[in-house]
């Protein structure tokens, strides 16, 4: 009789324990969800804060005015033009180089010390703080190669900065192509380069594009290295136009022009004590966030689409 009672009591204890543990489970699930939300909530707060502070500047003049000593008249014309031109150089520097390096590492490199050395360097470069790239650019591009504090210098610097991103995404895209595709091409007599050029690059295009977009978004928002090379912050002129009306219709003077970019313009306005300029900084920040989120969002969406449409 008493044994039965103790068994019953035991069962009750066990049930209580199970209940307790299940409750812990639920409590942790809620905490976990909240922890995941912290970043998102912070980003939303930040974005709303920027829009609330800066909305008065969202008018066409803000995009067509040069920076000015009067906060209300100041605009971001030189900054966004500078950003676009720097991005062009960054793209031309990083993409061919990064894709070629990725192809070499995946398709050509023999398993030897050289390939290992390159691999170690790529993963190491991805972890170098961006300000150190700025120092590299200051010592190498600005003074050793004498390129000056120009759009060319900034573009090359950011190009080096995003090179690891392009290389890694190229490799990942290439790695996902089944070996059978290559074997089929070899079987009909294609050379290695023909296999790579007609098939590998072709099928990995989407994946590479994803990496390139993410890299370009990163370059667009990078501030520290561009400040370090000495980008001027008060620029009330535009670089010479890349397209002219006389032959040969293209000129490269803009490459050596002084410039500013969006994040530097924002940094400059933000580091002034006058609150009126902080409004401009907020508006610029909102624009930077929207553009980078759109670029990153496109890249992520693209990758999702590619994964869904994969044919092998």
């Amino acid at each position, binding site marked *: 009789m008493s044994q039965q009672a103790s068994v019953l009591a035991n069962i009750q204890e066990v049930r209580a324990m199970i209940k307790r543990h299940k409750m812990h489970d639920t409590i942790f699930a809620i905490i976990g969800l909240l922890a995941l939300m912290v970043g998102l909530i912070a980003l939303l707060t930040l974005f709303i804060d920027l829009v609330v502070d800066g909305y008065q500047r969202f008018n066409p003049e803000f995009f067509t005015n040069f920076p000015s000593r009067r906060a209300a008249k100041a605009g971001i014309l030189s900054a966004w033009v500078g950003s676009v031109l720097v991005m062009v150089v960054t793209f031309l520097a990083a993409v061919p180089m990064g894709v070629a390096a990725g192809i070499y590492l995946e398709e050509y490199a023999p398993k030897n010390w050289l390939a290992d050395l390159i691999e170690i360097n790529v993963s190491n470069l991805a972890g170098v703080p961006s300000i150190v790239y700025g120092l590299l650019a200051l010592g190498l591009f600005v003074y050793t190669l004498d390129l000056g504090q120009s759009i060319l210098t900034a573009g090359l610097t950011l190009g080096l900065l995003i090179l690891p991103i392009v290389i890694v995404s190229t490799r990942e895209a290439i790695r996902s192509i089944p070996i059978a595709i290559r074997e089929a091409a070899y079987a009909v007599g294609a050379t290695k380069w023909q296999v790579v050029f007609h098939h590998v690059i072709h099928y990995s295009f989407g994946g590479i594009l994803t990496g390139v977009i993410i890299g370009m978004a990163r370059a667009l928002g990078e501030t520290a290295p561009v400040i370090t090379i000495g980008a001027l912050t008060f620029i009330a002129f535009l670089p010479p136009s890349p397209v002219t009306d006389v032959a040969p219709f293209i000129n490269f003077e803009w490459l050596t022009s002084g410039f500013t970019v969006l994040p530097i313009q924002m940094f400059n306005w933000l580091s002034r004590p006058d609150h009126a300029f902080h409004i401009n900084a907020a508006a610029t920040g909102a624009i930077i966030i929207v553009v980078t*989120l759109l670029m990153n969002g496109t890249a992520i969406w693209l990758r999702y689409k590619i994964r869904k449409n994969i044919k092998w």
Partner: protein
Amino acid sequence: MQANLPNNHISKRLAKNIRRHMFERFVELLLMLAALSAVATTVAIVVILIKESLAFFNTVSIVDFLTDTQWTPLFEDAHYGIMPLVSGTLTTSAIALSVAVPIGTIGAIYLSEFASHKTREIVKPILELLIGVPTVVFGYFALLFVTPMLQKIFPELPGFNMLGPGIVMGIMIIPYISSLAEDAMRAVPMSMREGSYAMGATRFQTAIRVVTPAAISGIIAAYILAISRALGETMVVALAAGQQPNLTFNPMESAATISAYIVQVAMGDLPHGSIGYQSIFAAGLVLMLMTLTFNIIGHITRKRYRENY
């Protein structure tokens, strides 16, 4: 058949083969050169940093550099002690980590062990979006949103302080830790979880006592890589932590970090070759060595866990 073909046809084909072969080798060479650019970049970084730092250490003794408690290279009474900048860097990074490590880890556990497939499909891209937000924007957040809010709790907090930017840096790093730690946890084989569930454990117990210990080296690697990111972070601290080198570990005070100092000097117009110009390279070398150490330890730890399963 072959014998019936005219001779010059065969030699033409052979010639084409050689051309093809040459072209192949040429392409391979070009691709290899592109890949070597990664090595060249590393070499260039090391050479530039060491070259300018050597010039710096011609003027300043290494002992002074490491032991002097003041950093005033641009003042008349110049002192070159890196310690104040290092203390600022370490303090802001420590605050960032004390925010990011607990929240990031809990997020990772939830994502890996609790979240449904659908939740994960939604949350992972959002984490990636958060990693992509430019840091200068977070600087605005630290300076004009978080610090004023903290001043309501601590009225004596100065406008420039290390607490606000530290917290914001922490928020920036959360998705990074969550994402890396989750990768490590997902690498734990399903059979280990199934064993735990079969014993009657809850998801929470399985996560804490089975999955986390099994993935611990990967999780620690995530922390270490996050430390290295925090150390090198520039814009948030340059904007919101102040520009005065200050040998303190008190988060309520203002202090410059190594990266903030580099930005501050680069903004001014320092002549090439001056001691001020050289000082940013010496500071950069210290920063590079600090982050490199953590990166290497992180990668080694990460490799180890990958080989386990």
